[in-house]
């Protein structure tokens, strides 16, 4: 019995976590639909702040990472495959490696590292300081004022960052292809265009929506669960990172299996 109890405890914990997440998502969606026109300005202001922090402030980091990744991908590919006519497969390589997989995935990892941690820590501090209670007590719905703007902000930012990441990674790849092998821009873009399909766009869009939801709601869940002491904040941040990373990788695998398997 003790063995069974030990086995069941993490399963129950995981199911409770899933239930909490579902509750947060559904409640936020429901309360989003109940927003009045005059409340949109307040929620919009908070969303803009989140977009600035998650999107704009991360632009240089994402751009640099994307340029380097695009360039390194082509350097490595050519170093291994140059004798096999790899230049004919530049587009396929870039679409397969960058656009389909690494673009959304690495952007999600950067957003988790920069923003999910900040959201969890901020909400945790607000919870400890009684700010969440005060909002609710004074008629400011926390789902509308705290969760919805963070979700929307992360969603808009993720979309913009993934587009930016993909474009700059392609740019980094093109620089290497041009400097080392003299590939023209037209040839390079034709090659990419031929390898791209509508399914790739759909997959990227799906990843942006699901990753941003997972990141925002994991951060909100662990941040808002803080109840008693400052020492819970770093624990919540760590849990947010680990849990959001696992969720993002699982979702990535699921989407790949559903769309490409």
């Amino acid at each position, binding site marked *: 019995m003790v063995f069974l109890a030990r086995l069941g405890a993490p399963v129950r914990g995981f199911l409770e976590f899933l239930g909490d997440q579902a509750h947060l998502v559904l409640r936020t969606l429901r309360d989003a639909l109940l927003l*009045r026109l*005059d*409340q949109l*300005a*307040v929620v919009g202001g908070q969303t803009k702040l989140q977009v600035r922090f998650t999107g704009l402030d991360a632009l240089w980091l994402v751009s640099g990472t994307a340029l380097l990744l695009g360039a390194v991908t082509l350097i490595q590919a050519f170093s291994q495959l140059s004798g096999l006519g790899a230049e004919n497969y530049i587009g396929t390589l870039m679409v397969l490696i960058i656009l389909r997989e690494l673009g959304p995935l690495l952007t999600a990892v950067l957003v988790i590292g920069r923003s999910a941690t900040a959201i969890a820590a901020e909400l945790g*501090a*607000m919870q*400890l*300081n*009684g*700010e969440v*209670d*005060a*909002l*609710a*007590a*004074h*008629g*400011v*719905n926390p789902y509308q*004022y705290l969760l919805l703007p963070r979700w929307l902000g992360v969603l808009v930012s993720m979309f913009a960052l993934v587009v930016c990441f993909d474009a700059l990674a392609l740019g980094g790849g093109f620089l290497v292809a041009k400097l080392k092998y003299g590939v023209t821009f037209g040839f390079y873009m034709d090659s990419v265009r031929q390898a791209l399909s509508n399914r790739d766009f759909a997959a990227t869009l799906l990843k942006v929506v699901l990753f941003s939801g997972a990141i925002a709601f994991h951060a909100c869940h662990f941040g808002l669960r803080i*109840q*008693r002491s400052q020492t819970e904040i770093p624990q919540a941040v760590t849990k947010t990172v680990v849990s959001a990373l696992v969720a993002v990788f699982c979702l990535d695998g699921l989407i790949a299996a559903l769309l490409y398997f």
Partner: protein
Amino acid sequence: MIELHDLALDAPDGRLLVQGLDLALPRGGNLLLTGPSGFGKSRLLKVIAGIERPARGTVRVGGHPVWPGDGVLALAGKVRLGFAFASGGLLSNLTLRENLALPLRFQGTPAAEARQRTEAALERLDLLAVSELRPHAVSASARRHGNLARVLAMEPDLILLDDPLEGLDAADRAIALELLQTWTADPACTLVIAAEEPHAFTHLEVARLQLSPVPVESP
């Protein structure tokens, strides 16, 4: 306005604080909760406000079920509530002025009226000089007054004040007491004050409820 039935409250460590509490406070009524620290005064206020869950019992505010129920979200748009917390409670990323204006903006108060009510509340609590500062940049007494000013600007039906005079000097205390007197005299406003030291409130016309420790049953 407030109906409590068979209410039991427990501390975070599981210790029972209040048991079998029945209370009915009519609209316009005033109540002073007293008792030593750690006996559940603040927790009772939070349970009435719907931001903490009782161990047992029912809570209704303005005829609306709070517990069992959706807690404070059940009162949204139905009962205007003002809560001055003993510590914290003001949003640390907003200035005092924005803290006062936020609930008004969220409840759909016209911008001009919200501005006027915010200004009036800041002036009455003597906070105009620090109104553009964030809570961490002002003194503890200004933060307490900020909490009271937010309640004042809300023009609430139900006011819950957790130790509103604690840590205030004589001048700030006088400003706060004058405001409390206004609220106690207002028949449209129901007031509940929790305080460790009841002496400061002797001249207020309020009903009093002393919270006593729940006897621990020996095994």
